[in-house]
């Protein structure tokens, strides 16, 4: 545990650094997705330079070795200064890094980790059109062959929901190397260069006009055997390390940002002249209290992790709380905004508080569906926390 004084010193340091370095007007500057990507890269490199990009990495890395309490302070200050969220480098610094730290060979670590700090972007190739909530059902095949004297996996299949894969240099890829036994047993974890022959990335047009996710078509892509993480057929365990890399701080940061966005609802109330309407005030008060509870549960989750007391299902509760509050928050904004919100607004990339409530409402589904849908979270809570029994494996109808 850190003492309060040293945390406050850190807070002052971050705040001072942000006062000098935080970008301004970034929302307006990002008129295209490419501009957004460029701006994200620049801000990430700036944060690396300042020593605040990878506080969760081990201490031997510059800016690493921060305790969770220190990370929390850094995130709080980043949210407070309304800096761009680090979306493009998120998979790189969390998912990829955590995979390397926990499961990779020394060679892999030495090769890939430094490049992340130089701005190399990673994406994830996990989900498939028929393997979403049921990830282990994935079908992308990898066959081990010798080609041009090199031992490689030849990979063919289709991936989906790869966040910002159109900008990615590298990919964390799950493939099937065997169809024998349990679904999980035949899965292998590979690192794939996105410039490889046979990789075809197609951005998915989202309903709010964004292109945050991509489909990835893999046609006989050759991945060197040395790019495997963990043993062949043991990729499922590696994927768990990847997926468990981060949840708490992101949701804490997002809940804090939602608290800050309460002012946008207040604005609508004033605009509608409802400052003294009891019903409207009560709805506003109730949703802001739920926002406070989303902040409180995220805080507690991190505290429990700090104390090593995280339990199964805790993360699901944090996520489900956030996703439900977020959607209802957007719905209240929509209601108060009225017909004006139905006019199409320009896209604001990667922000949950875009200034247009229809866009925010649509963005809210990214939290109720992606990263483990509300339904999957409910299953986890009911089955593992309340111990109500798993869904059956086999049914006789």
């Amino acid at each position, binding site marked *: 545990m850190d003492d309060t004084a040293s945390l406050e010193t850190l807070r002052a340091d971050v705040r001072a650094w942000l006062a000098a370095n935080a970008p301004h007007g970034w929302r307006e500057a990002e008129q295209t997705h490419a501009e957004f990507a460029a701006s994200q890269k620049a801000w990430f490199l700036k944060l690396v330079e300042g020593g605040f990009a990878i506080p969760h990495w081990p201490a031997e890395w510059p800016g690493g070795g921060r305790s969770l309490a220190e990370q929390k302070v850094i995130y709080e200050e980043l949210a407070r200064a309304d800096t761009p969220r680090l979306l493009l480098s998120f998979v790189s610094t969390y998912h990829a890094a955590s995979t390397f730290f926990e499961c990779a060979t020394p060679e892999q670590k030495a090769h890939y980790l430094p490049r992340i700090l130089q701005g190399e972007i990673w994406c994830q190739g996990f*989900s498939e059109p*028929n393997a*979403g*909530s*049921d990830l282990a*059902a994935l079908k992308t095949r990898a066959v081990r062959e010798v080609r041009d004297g090199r031992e490689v996996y030849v990979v063919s299949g289709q991936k*989906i*929901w790869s966040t910002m894969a159109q900008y990615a240099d590298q990919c964390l890829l799950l493939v099937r190397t065997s169809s024998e036994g349990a679904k999980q047993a035949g899965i292998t974890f590979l690192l794939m260069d996105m410039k490889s022959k046979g990789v075809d990335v197609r951005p*998915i*047009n*989202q*309903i709010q006009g964004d292109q945050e*996710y991509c489909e990835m078509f893999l046609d006989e892509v050759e991945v060197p055997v040395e790019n495997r993480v963990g043993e062949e057929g043991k990729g499922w365990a590696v994927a768990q390390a990847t997926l468990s890399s981060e949840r708490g701080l992101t949701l804490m940061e997002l809940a804090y940002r939602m608290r800050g966005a309460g002012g946008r609802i207040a604005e609508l109330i004033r605009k509608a002249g409802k400052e003294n309407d009891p019903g409207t005030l009560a709805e506003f008060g109730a949703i802001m209290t739920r926002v406070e509870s989303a902040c409180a549960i995220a805080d507690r989750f991190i505290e429990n992790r700090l104390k090593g007391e995280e339990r199964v299902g805790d993360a699901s509760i944090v996520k489900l709380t956030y996703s439900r509050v977020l959607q209802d928050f957007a719905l209240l904004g*929509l*209601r108060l905004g*009225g*017909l004006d919100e*139905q*006019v*199409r607004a320009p896209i604001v990339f990667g922000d949950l508080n875009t200034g247009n409530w*229809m866009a925010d409402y*649509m963005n809210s*589904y*990214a939290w*109720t*569906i*992606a990263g483990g*849908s*509300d*339904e999957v979270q*409910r299953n986890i809570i009911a089955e593992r926390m309340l111990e109500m029994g798993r*869904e059956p494996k086999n*049914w006789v*109808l």
Partner: protein
Amino acid sequence: MIELSELQDAAQKAFPADTLAPARDASWQLIAEMGWLMIDLPEDLGGLGLGRDATTMLHVEMGRVLSRAPLATALITQRALALSETLADKAGWLERTSTGTFVTINYDRRRITLDGRTVSGTLPAVPDADMASHVLLCTDGLIALVPLDAASVTVRERPLWDETRRLFDVTLADHAIDPALVVAEGAAADAIAATLREDMLLGIAADAIGGAAAALDATVDYLKTRRQFDRPLALFQALKHRCADLKTRIVAADALLWARAADPAATSVQFGALKALACEVFRFTTQEMIQLHGGIGLTEEHSAHLFMKRAMLDFWLAGGADVLNEAAGRAALAA
């Protein structure tokens, strides 16, 4: 007398469920050819005089396929013309609007000033002004047609999230009303305006019910097809119960829709309350539709978002639920 079920069959044949949001202009032509622009016009004025049951049926069906064509708007403005006792060329107008000429009207509160017969201000949320010859101006004690090509009239599209509809702001700058285009004045104008509002609210309610029913159908079909954990999603009880709740809410709103459509004594407050109920059901159905579709529902490749965006627009057209329910509550309090 045409049976409602025949009309429904014809509508479903002309606008099949598997072609969502068919092109507007082709749909409009088809609608004119089907004779639907004569359906509501009284027989003594050359129409079929089928009444609200028939128009409601059509609006439900148009809602089901997310129609882009402004049939409801056309029938509303045509009714005003049919009720007119002052319109100079009434027969001509009814003939033209029965065969494809389109007159539009605003679906949000107007912000206009009337100085004698000179009008200024903006009519917001006017559907398909680009294909309309005139907009029907309804203001206190005056209903009149305003030609959209007049120099004093500016038309500006406001692009919507809902891709299946187009709304315009029509701005009048010291527009002098043509006496030949006056539809009604004084008490007669107010009576017609009240009828138009009823039609408007009923039309949106019908659209919402049709849309909600189609959204649920599509969702249930998807759940039957989509497999996760080695079985169709349709077998997961939590999802089944949510679909059952949607079905129940849609059917109950549908029952009220038809009860109101058949009730000549129904008030505009009652139509407003119906509209609020139907649109909330549609909105919630599409919320569940996207959630139950998962990721695919968030992409433009799938039609879920078309339903959702249309539901949101329906929710707000001609007044949101808060305002309409407040009026219903006030009426119930006075009852």
